[in-house]
Every structure is written in C-alpha cells, then in structure tokens.
C-alpha cells in the first residue's frame, strides 16, 4: 500500500517560504499571483495491505512525526 500525505500550514500561520516563492515568481515576470503557500508531500510505501489499518498507522505517523500539529494540518490518501 502506498500512502500519500500532504502537510500544509494551518490557515493564518505565516508561511515565509510561500511568501518568498510568490515574490520570486513576480520578479520573474509572472503576473496575477495573489498568494503561494508551500507544504510538504510525502509518499510512504507500507507493507500493510489492510486499508483501515494502514489509514490508522499513517494517522499515527502524522501525529507523532510527520506533521507539527501545532501549526500544520495533514491529509492522507491511500493507493494500492
């Protein structure tokens, strides 16, 4: 099973990286960019074949390590 995890900053949390990206894109001449936000995208290959158990395990991974839940949200997608 493969888990695809998105980790994004909670709304309202300052995103210096996103700010710098938006700024750099504008400097390169791309117009009309209101905002950019940067998050992480993590793919994990799991031995677990059971969807429910895989979901539970990845939830736990997010809470314990992958996301900093004080400032970040996470979302999980499972794929074969």
């Amino acid at each position, binding site marked *: 099973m493969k888990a695809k995890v998105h980790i994004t900053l909670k709304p309202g949390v300052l995103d*210096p*990286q996103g700010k*710098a*990206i938006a700024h*750099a894109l504008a*400097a*390169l001449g791309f117009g009309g960019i209101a905002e950019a936000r*940067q998050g992480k995208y993590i793919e994990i290959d799991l031995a677990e074949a059971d969807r429910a158990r895989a979901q539970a395990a990845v939830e736990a991974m997010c809470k314990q390590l992958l996301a900093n839940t004080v400032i970040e949200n996470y979302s999980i997608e499972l794929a074969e």
Partner: protein
Amino acid sequence: MKAAVIVFPGSNCDRDVKVALDAATGRPTSMIWHKETELPALDLIVLPGGFSYGDYLRAGAIAARSPVMRAVVAKAQSGTAVLAICNGFQVATEAGLLPGTLMRNRNQKFVCKDVHLKVETSQTAFTARYAAGQVIRLPIAHADGNYFADPETLAEIEAEGRVAFRYVTPDGAPDDDANPNGSAANIAGVFNREKTVLGLMPHPERLTEPALGGIDGRAMFDSLVAALS
C-alpha cells in the same frame, strides 16, 4: 586582480570574503547588489555564503534567477573566474554554472565545524598555492551540502579531474567517517570543465588568520591573486 562579491538579500558571508580578498589583493573589493544587470570588467567574481532569499524553496534557487546572475553566467562563459562558496556553490549549481546539486545533509542537521580536505589538483588558478594531495583544514557551515550528481555526471567529473576538494580524515583517507554531509564520493568542491569556476562548501575565508584558528584558506586567495593579476 579586480574582484567583486555579489550580494544577494540574505548573503551573510559577503563581508567575510571581502576582508580576505582585500588582504590578499591589497585593494578594495567591490560589492555588487543582486539587482544590477551589468558587471564591470573583472578578474574574479565571488558568490558568497549565507542564506540568499532565506534559502526558501531550495538553497540557492531564487538567487540563481536574480537579475545579476544572467550577467555572472555570461561573464563565466567568457572565461571570468568565479569562486562560489557555500551558498554561492548552491547558487552556482542552480544557475547551471556547475554540475550536480546540493541536497540536505544526510543527518538533516546544520553542521558547523572544521573538516579536513584533500586538494585534488594544484593545476588551477584557485589551487596553485596548494600541493596536489595536500590535506588542509577548513570550516564548513551548512545544512544543504550533500553533493549529488547522477552517475554519468559523476564519472565525467572524475574523468576530467574536476573534483577540487574531497572530505578526508586528517591523514588523507576519503572514507565515510570523514564525510560530514553524505556527499557523493566525498566531494567538497568541483570545477567547471574549463576550471575557471570553482564551487565548494567549505569556507576558505574563515581561516585566513592565525587568530581565527588557522591560515589554510589563505592560499586560495593567494593563488587567485597570482594567477589573475
């Protein structure tokens, strides 16, 4: 030798390298703001260490696309020497001046310490005052110094003798214990094909005075002055 240091927002070793260059050349080094689009006649361009644009997105990525870099690349292509130190090395790879890329250190941590380096060649403007095979000591200070290039590129760099420095033990062994960041083949610095551009993670400008703990960095600046004056 006329030298200039490019200053990006977030550069922070620009003054340090200027001090070292001023001492070596005996004349003031000019500082060039990243928004400049044209460069004066120069013998040496330095891309300094620091965190240009905070190293946000990827280390060196945003600086590599700043206006001045187009001029730097043009100068480099016409043979002007470029010394790219630490963040400057990252900028240079992002700008395509040097092969490969610098990834996050394998232990994920910033590391600041002295390392030992083997000088692979003394046949360049940057290293003439060192002896080939000599082991020197220089500081590193980076989080993204893990040199990566695909196998064909690595083979080519090696075959063309373009590895400038390798991380080694004090007695010269390029083993894994001596590798502070996971770099391929313990590579600490590489040249372009013509050996007119050098990128390296260690900071020669930080060891140019006994008071700072050593002078192993001084020979690089002295080499450049001798070759380019």
